[in-house]
């Protein structure tokens, strides 16, 4: 069974700082690693995803870094803003069309 270990469980960052969330996985059926963002009272929504034919993907202030040999990937939020305060989930693909999700990181950005 796939395990996805996500850390930290919670994170407090000053406005303008860098938020870093890490995930490690065990095995993968194929290469597609998404990050989801969830605001209170809402369902998770796709934030950014990477197919590891590249080691890094950047979209605006959000960057995924991928280390295939170490089976680790991370989310970096540059210039963190109070509006980024949310719960973030990483996910790793299981066989078929399923994903295993990390346990989530609650990010609070202090103004």
């Amino acid at each position, binding site marked *: 069974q796939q395990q996805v270990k996500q850390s930290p469980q919670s994170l407090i960052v000053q406005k303008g700082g860098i938020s870093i969330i890490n995930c490690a996985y065990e095995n993968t059926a194929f290469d597609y690693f998404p990050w989801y963002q969830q605001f209170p009272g809402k369902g998770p929504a*796709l934030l950014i995803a990477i197919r590891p034919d590249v080691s890094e993907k950047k979209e605006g202030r959000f960057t995924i870094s991928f280390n295939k040999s170490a089976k680790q990937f991370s989310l970096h939020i540059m210039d963190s803003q109070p509006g980024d305060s949310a719960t973030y*989930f990483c996910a790793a693909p299981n066989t078929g*069309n399923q*994903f295993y999700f990390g346990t989530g990181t609650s990010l609070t950005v202090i103004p």
Partner: protein
Amino acid sequence: DVKVTQSSRYLVKRTGEKVFLECVQDMDHENMFWYRQDPGLGLRLIYFSYDVKMKEKGDIPEGYSVSREKKERFSLILESASTNQTSMYLCASSFAARGHEQYFGPGTRLTVT
């Protein structure tokens, strides 16, 4: 815009009641999923359906069943609700091909008393 809707945002039921949670998606997705979300445990897959009338157990299927009679609708059934089923329930859908994102509904907060 993809829309995944869930029948209730909040639900309070008594122990032993039969509970139905409904989910509808409007994007003609083949796959549909039911998760429960608990603090510190993340999203755990209860059941998965890849086609009408087809289903697969996820990681925590005990105490739950599902029904998919139409492509757009996926129902989660708690045959006899128990207090340890108090949770947030999230429905999601996606295309069948690998590497496609899952679209989530807003969730149903179920409390079993």
